[in-house]
């Protein structure tokens, strides 16, 4: 591929022979993909992206290995989705399946969080933290390290097969595969004790589902980040469509300031000498060369732009070189863009961030978060569910009293074994007895429930006819746990006592 150093552009600006393969109107559904060879960018946003990549990858790979002491009765993994035992552990929080609304709440918060970020900073999720972006970036680092930067890769692609090309391709794909396996491998550690599973996995004694999961995620990581890349964003992901609909005149988008750049000209000195009007854009196409999505930002805001801002870095470097102010391509919103176009000074200030939309999103986020936190802190760690016997509904005893049977499910959601005290409110003369116990019936019964477990007990409640109001009489089961040094926890269940018609 040709490239020429143009000394005419007011400095040694490298001109790139590059076409935006995803220029609007040029995309064809049935055309084969044209490979993109993004050039390495350097600058403020590239550094930011390195940092974000390190942080997000670090969180993903290391989280399962964090330990959190929960005592003898629960796993010590800080974040664990224990599907086999239907428990979800997140540091100091433990969630049972019936408390899944916390997860639903978190997902709602994540959704609103995305709305908030989008209305403030545009498609920041896409450009910086989306796994597709992060892993593609990581794979590009490997590609660049093995095969060289843009021009070397283009040359290698065009070259006939040779030992050198083959070895580079093999090394690149093996490195990609290692990253992909590590990615799929890290995923399964969220679902089982990480050190144990790692040992089992390596000794080939882990459950089949672990290998299948790793296989699928390895394949998707390898294919999506290695070979599909920008196509995932453009053709598979619904998010660009949704986000595009959420942008407004205050949203930050990566903007080419055409009022300053146009008319673009590569050979400006000649044109200036001829007295023609020349914009700041030297048409070096550095912005296109670094773009991982294969677009030309100078075509304007478009669906395929993930706002990774690498074109800003590339353009700023060129502007520095030719002695023009930075910011020919910049993060702007419609207001600042129009103001600057009109020649007025415009800076991004807090009023663009604090506006009704963002305030509402923030308020929603804060409200949901506060409610969830409140409910979480106040939630009881015991519960009672009662299933009345239906066959028979009631039993008449020799002394004329009526007996009902109930299967009571007691949930001890604390991490210590506890003694639950069952009692009844209502039916003043009724007594109850555990089916499994030979102790005489009484108004209360004690049941030991293991730590973090549920237990079902059969209980018989016997009431004299005087207590009963017709065929059904309401009463309440209470369950109380009195732990040393903590306030008693109580839970209720409204039950019905059945009797024969009189």
């Amino acid at each position, binding site marked *: 591929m040709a490239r020429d150093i143009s000394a005419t552009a007011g400095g040694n600006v490298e001109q790139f022979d590059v076409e935006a393969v995803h220029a609007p109107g040029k995309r064809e*559904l*049935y055309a*084969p993909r044209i490979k993109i060879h993004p050039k390495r960018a350097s600058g403020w946003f590239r550094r930011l992206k390195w940092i974000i990549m390190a942080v997000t990858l670090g969180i993903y790979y290391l989280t399962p290995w964090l330990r959190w002491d929960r005592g003898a009765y629960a796993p010590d993994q800080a974040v664990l989705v224990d599907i086999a035992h239907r428990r979800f552990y997140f540091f100091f929080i433990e969630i049972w399946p019936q408390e899944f609304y916390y997860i639903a709440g978190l997902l709602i918060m994540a959704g609103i969080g995305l709305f908030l970020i989008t209305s403030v900073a545009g498609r920041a999720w896409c450009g910086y933290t989306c796994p597709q972006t992060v892993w593609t970036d990581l794979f590009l680092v490997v590609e660049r390290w093995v095969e060289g930067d843009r021009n070397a890769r283009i040359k290698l692609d065009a070259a006939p097969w040779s030992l050198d090309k083959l070895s580079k391709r093999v090394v690149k794909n093996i490195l990609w595969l290692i990253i992909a396996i590590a990615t799929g491998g890290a995923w399964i550690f969220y679902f089982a004790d990480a050190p144990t599973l790692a040992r089992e996995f390596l000794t080939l004694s882990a459950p089949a589902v672990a290998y299948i999961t790793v296989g699928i995620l390895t394949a998707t990581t390898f294919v999506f980040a290695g070979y599909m890349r920008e196509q995932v964003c453009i053709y598979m992901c619904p998010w660009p469509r949704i986000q595009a609909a959420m942008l407004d005149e205050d949203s930050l988008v990566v903007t080419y300031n055409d009022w300053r750049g146009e008319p673009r000209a590569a050979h400006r000195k000649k044109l200036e000498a001829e007295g023609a009007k020349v914009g700041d854009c030297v048409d070096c196409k550095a912005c296109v060369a670094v773009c991982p999505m294969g677009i030309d930002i100078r075509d304007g805001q478009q669906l395929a732009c993930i706002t990774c801002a690498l074109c800003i870095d590339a353009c700023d470097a060129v502007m520095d070189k030719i002695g023009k102010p930075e910011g020919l391509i910049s993060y702007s919103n419609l207001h600042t863009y129009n103001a600057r176009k009109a020649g007025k000074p415009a800076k991004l200030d807090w009023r663009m961030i604090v506006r009704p939309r963002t305030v509402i999103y923030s308020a929603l986020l804060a409200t949901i978060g506060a409610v969830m936190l409140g409910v979480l802190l106040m939630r009881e760690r015991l519960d009672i569910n009662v299933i009345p*016997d*239906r*066959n*028979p509904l009631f*039993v*008449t*005893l*020799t*002394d*004329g009293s009526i*007996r009902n*049977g109930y299967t009571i499910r007691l949930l001890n959601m604390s991490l210590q074994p506890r003694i639950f005290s069952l009692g009844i409110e209502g039916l003043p003369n009724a007594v109850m007895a555990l*089916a*499994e116990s*030979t102790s005489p019936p009484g108004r209360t019964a004690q049941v030991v429930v293991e730590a973090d477990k549920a237990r079902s007990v*059969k209980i*018989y409640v016997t009431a004299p006819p005087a207590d009963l109001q017709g065929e059904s009489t309401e009463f309440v089961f209470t369950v109380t746990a009195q732990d040393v040094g903590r306030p008693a926890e109580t839970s209720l269940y409204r039950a019905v006592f059945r009797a024969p018609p009189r």
Partner: protein
Amino acid sequence: MATPERDSITGTPTTGHEWDGIKELNTPLPRWWLWTFYATIVWAIAYSIAYPAWPLINTATAGLLGYSSRADVARDIADARLAQGKWLERISTSDLDQIAADPELFAFARAGGAASFRLYCVQCHGSGAAGARGYPNLNDDDWLWGGTLEQIHKTLENGIRFTGDPDTRDSQMPAFADGILTPAQISDVAEYVLKLGGQTNDAVAAARGEPLFAENCASCHGETGEGNRDLGAPRLSDPIWLLNGSKDAIVAQISNPRMGVMPAWKGRLDENTIKQLAIYVHSLGGGEQPDAQ
């Protein structure tokens, strides 16, 4: 007629079909779709070789992997039997009181008993063990032949009035209409039985029936109608009726009694199953302790 050509606007070939000047583009399938389609074909062929697929006349191809859902079930059942083995071993070496005293063993025996009950007992006693007319309710505390573990176990083993077992529980209630009592006397005794059970009755007739009861019935049913479990004589002084508590039904029973029969399960079921059934029935809420009688 059909002459394929290349469409000048899209550059795509046509199928050559034309209707009223409208030509049909032969747009190629999207490649991802095509490859997915090919993949499903390959998958289908591989699957039908690896797994049972092709019907034959009397059977079907077995597949190279030898998979069979029936074999899976058989293996699961074998595994379950193996897992039950150690519990059944403990049940066979423990007596009923030991089983009842061990929570784990009790839970196993109760569950096993419940399963066997559904197989062998529900036909008469009902799925909730609530019985039916003539078939006792096993949930209550009104036992004909005794409600301790031992007594329930014996009833299960030897049955009631079961001709095939010499050790069966047996008793006979005479047919009092058969020359022992007159219809009027039977009516009076029935009024007295109503009184014993706390039901509305004709006080005068009941008073006439009292001496008749003491003379003819108390030897088995007790002076106050409290029953006698050694003889399987039902308790009459409670609101629980095996047949029916109405006067007509009582008169019919005194005149020409019906008496229940239960088969002996010893020999038909193994000892472990009978033990588990005894534990289950005893746990239904009416089970008695030996000293509580």
